[in-house]
């Protein structure tokens, strides 16, 4: 997965990947920073800025939870707006990738 193209492609879907994770359940930042770099080439430190931006956009809210006994952790939860953004970004991506695949396979309109 080590080439410049993949890095470029990844940039556009980063937010979608984070939304997808959060759509499946609340996560704390560490969780996200662990899981996203497994799918796309990304420094773990780059995940927190995305989460923060999504919070500013109103797509996620945060809350503190001490359920694991340790120090309180900051959890991220998708808002209704975030869920709508997720659905639409997901559909957009599927539509987009399908049309690109179609084009690559040389199908005429």
């Amino acid at each position, binding site marked *: 997965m080590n080439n410049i193209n993949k890095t470029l492609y990844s940039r556009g879907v980063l937010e979608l990947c984070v939304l997808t994770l959060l759509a499946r359940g609340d996560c704390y*930042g*560490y969780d996200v*920073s662990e899981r996203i*770099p497994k799918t796309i080439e990304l*420094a*773990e*430190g*780059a995940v*927190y*800025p995305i989460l*923060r*931006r999504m919070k*500013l*956009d109103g797509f996620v809210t945060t809350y503190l939870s001490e359920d694991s006994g340790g*120090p309180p*952790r*900051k959890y991220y939860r998708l808002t209704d707006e975030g869920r709508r953004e997720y659905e*639409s970004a997901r559909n957009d991506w599927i539509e987009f990738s399908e049309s690109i695949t179609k084009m690559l396979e040389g199908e005429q*309109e």
Partner: protein
Amino acid sequence: MKKADFLYELQTNLQKSRVSDADDILAEYEQHFDRKMQDGYTEDEISQRLGSPEDVASLYDAGNPAVRTQFIVKGGIALADIGIAFVWILVFGMIAVMFAAAAAFVGTGAFIATGTAFPFTDVAPLAMPAITRILIVAAEFGAAVLCALGGLWYARLFGRQIKSYKRFRSNALNGAKLPPVPIFPLTSLAVRRRERAVILVAAALLILGLVAAYTVSAISAHSFEFWHVWQWFA
């Protein structure tokens, strides 16, 4: 790089680019270090995987225009919100008008086709020869199709405008990042071609139907004002 060094450099860089609530951000990275150390990573490994503090700080910078411009941008966006609301009221009105007109054409078409009286009016069942009836109903059908297509187009425009404005808004508030979404609906060539064919047929039905209906009626009633002869509004 050790945890303390990483956090110090991150803090310095965040302050340099005037990112708000830097403490909150630092706390998050501190937690990240603690958690990873529990998992057995060394401080050096963790900071290596995080990326350089400068890079990390620059990611925050991109998402956060200075507070002052933020204030102006927010004011501008608030005004734009009000403006776009008026536009959307108009667009939404057009959707309603188009579909209402389509429904009206279908309704009147149905009453003319069946030769029954219009409800809620004084208009008695309209007397006319069968051929006029068929032509008028065909014209009304064409008009209904045109209006419904218009309504659909406005509905698509409405959806597209919402998307486009949302993108514009979030780009303006967070510093432009994503490419703008087109304002007008995009359809594939195949769909456009099909739509054009339907519009042509519907328009032809409407225009030819009306012209033919008038001509046939005028001839059969021996009057240019055949509606008087057939006493439609008597």
